[in-house]
């Protein structure tokens, strides 16, 4: 049993690693990601409204600023960070207990008028055989020009290393539209993005290349576009497209997104669906389909529950290669800085066929600096 625990700790990296911002708050609380975040993609550093929101949405409040406002930062500098770890149970189908650090990221943003430099640094899973040089890295670093220096909308131009904006960008990276939908964990890479954000609509276009400096996750050169139109204060619709190519294969992704907020019960529905034409050198192509539906219920101040349904078919022409999942995420925002999450998943291959299945139940602790 002990060996299983130890080995699980080493091998469970598949479940581990960072999470991003919560798109659950878009439409239900704010209209855009930039209402709370400094990045047009969302995630990472919070702006003044974002920190205030972190306080109001938590159960017990506490000063929401960086390090509880223990020291005053100059107006041109923003600092932040996220620490996450988890422990729990994984069925593989062997039963194992798992525990792993997920994220230790520190963020910094220095700005001068409309120009800013963003750097994210921290721990990463080390590369086998090159451990000494790969415990730390900078996942994101980019230079950004913002048309409206002190505002949250307008034109944004970014150049550097970051994740292209594509689709709904769910926080949990195992969600199918993240894992199989073109924005896999750690697939940040070098690129140029031109983005426009308005309370009523937003558009993002990114050209990207394979990272020439490290052994990367993203092996492709390509381009991604995403546009979202907010039809009413409680409903939005979006379109997405991505092309990326490598020596042996090429992906064309196309999809749609939608959000609908139901005010009475305080529930947000989010849906993303993609069709993927995956051309493989001299072997024809695979027609893939990816979808994820998430319903989020804001139960009470400080408590949020997500129910997610995922579908991924690696080749719609072949029977038996589809997989489905049901996810449940219970979030408890205890204070402005502390969050506890219970992540649950049950996954099947070809639902209803009696084929193999997988499951996990993980308790996650998140501390925002």
């Amino acid at each position, binding site marked *: 049993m002990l060996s*299983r625990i130890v*080995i*699980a700790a080493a*091998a*469970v*990296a*598949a*479940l*581990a*690693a960072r999470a991003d911002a919560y798109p659950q708050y878009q439409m239900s609380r704010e209209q855009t990601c930039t209402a709370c975040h400094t990045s047009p993609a969302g995630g990472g550093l919070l702006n003044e409204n974002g920190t205030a929101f972190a306080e109001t949405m938590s159960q017990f409040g506490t000063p929401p600023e960086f390090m509880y406002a223990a020291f005053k930062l100059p107006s041109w500098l923003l600092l932040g960070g996220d620490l996450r770890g988890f422990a729990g149970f*994984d069925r*593989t*189908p*062997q039963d*194992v207990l798992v525990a792993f650090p997920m994220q230790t990221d520190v963020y910094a943003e220095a700005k001068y008028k409309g120009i800013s430099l963003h750097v994210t640094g921290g721990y990463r*899973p*080390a*590369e*086998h*055989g090159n451990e000494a040089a790969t415990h730390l890295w900078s996942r994101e670093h980019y230079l950004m020009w913002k048309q409206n220096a002190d505002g949250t909308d307008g034109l944004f131009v970014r150049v550097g290393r970051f994740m292209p904006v594509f689709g709904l960008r769910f926080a949990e990276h*195992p969600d199918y539209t993240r*894992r*199989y939908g073109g924005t*896999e*964990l*750690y*697939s940040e890479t070098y690129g140029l993005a031109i983005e426009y954000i308005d309370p009523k609509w937003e558009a993002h276009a990114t050209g990207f290349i394979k990272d020439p400096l*490290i*052994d990367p*996750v993203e092996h492709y050169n390509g381009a991604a576009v995403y546009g979202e139109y907010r039809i009413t204060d409680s409903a939005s619709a979006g379109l997405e497209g991505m092309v990326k190519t*490598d*020596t*042996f*294969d090429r992906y064309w992704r196309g999809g749609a997104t939608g959000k609908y907020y139901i005010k009475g019960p305080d529930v947000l529905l989010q849906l993303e669906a993609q069709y993927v034409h*995956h051309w*493989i*050198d*001299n*072997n*024809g192509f*695979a*027609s893939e389909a990816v979808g994820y539906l998430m319903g989020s219920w804001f139960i009470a101040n400080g408590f949020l529950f997500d129910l997610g349904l995922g579908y991924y*078919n*690696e*080749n*719609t*022409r*072949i*029977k*038996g*290669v*589809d*997989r489905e999942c049901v996810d449940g995420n219970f979030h408890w925002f205890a204070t402005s800085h502390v969050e506890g999450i219970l992540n649950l998943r049950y*996954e099947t*291959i*070809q639902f209803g066929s009696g*084929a*193999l299945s*997988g499951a*996990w139940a993980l308790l996650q602790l998140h501390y925002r600096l």
Partner: protein
Amino acid sequence: MFRTALLLVAAAACGGAEDRPKNLTYITEAILQPTCGAAECHSQYTQQVGDEYDTVESARRTFVSHFQLTTPDPNNCGPSNGTVGQDTMIVTALTRGCASYLGTTQNGKLAIVRMPYDAPMPSEDIQLIVDWINAGASGAQCIPGQGDVCGHNNDAYTCDDDGNLGVFVRLCTTANACTLPGNPVPSSC
């Protein structure tokens, strides 16, 4: 028109018979990369236990240099009583997990559970891999650029640019000198 469209959609949703290519390029790009090559697992980025499956070249290197397509599970796992190909390291890992299958390359023992760790691989995909191995593991027979390599019967071959055994070169004069298929011919041959 509408009925035809409906039938096409239904056919696409249900899927059809297995007709996928059985070669390294297809298996890597369509199956291994999305299933095994996740960032924190067997990607170039992390290379857990030294294995990479997210590009054709890295999958070939892993299969050949770690003997994953040719060596039966060395111990502890035992035979599965299945068809030929099912007791190779890669298929054992995908179907059952076992103890110490990594011992050959990692110089030690490591107990593992079934792979992929986070979610199972569809049986159809595993069967495609088994069929590909039984058909000779096209594209993963050797690593190009290493000179002459061993075959399966103490013999040596050239290795072509596609990772397949090429022209027969010689039979080793020393018994059991060339026993690691796809790997460079030792000087004792």
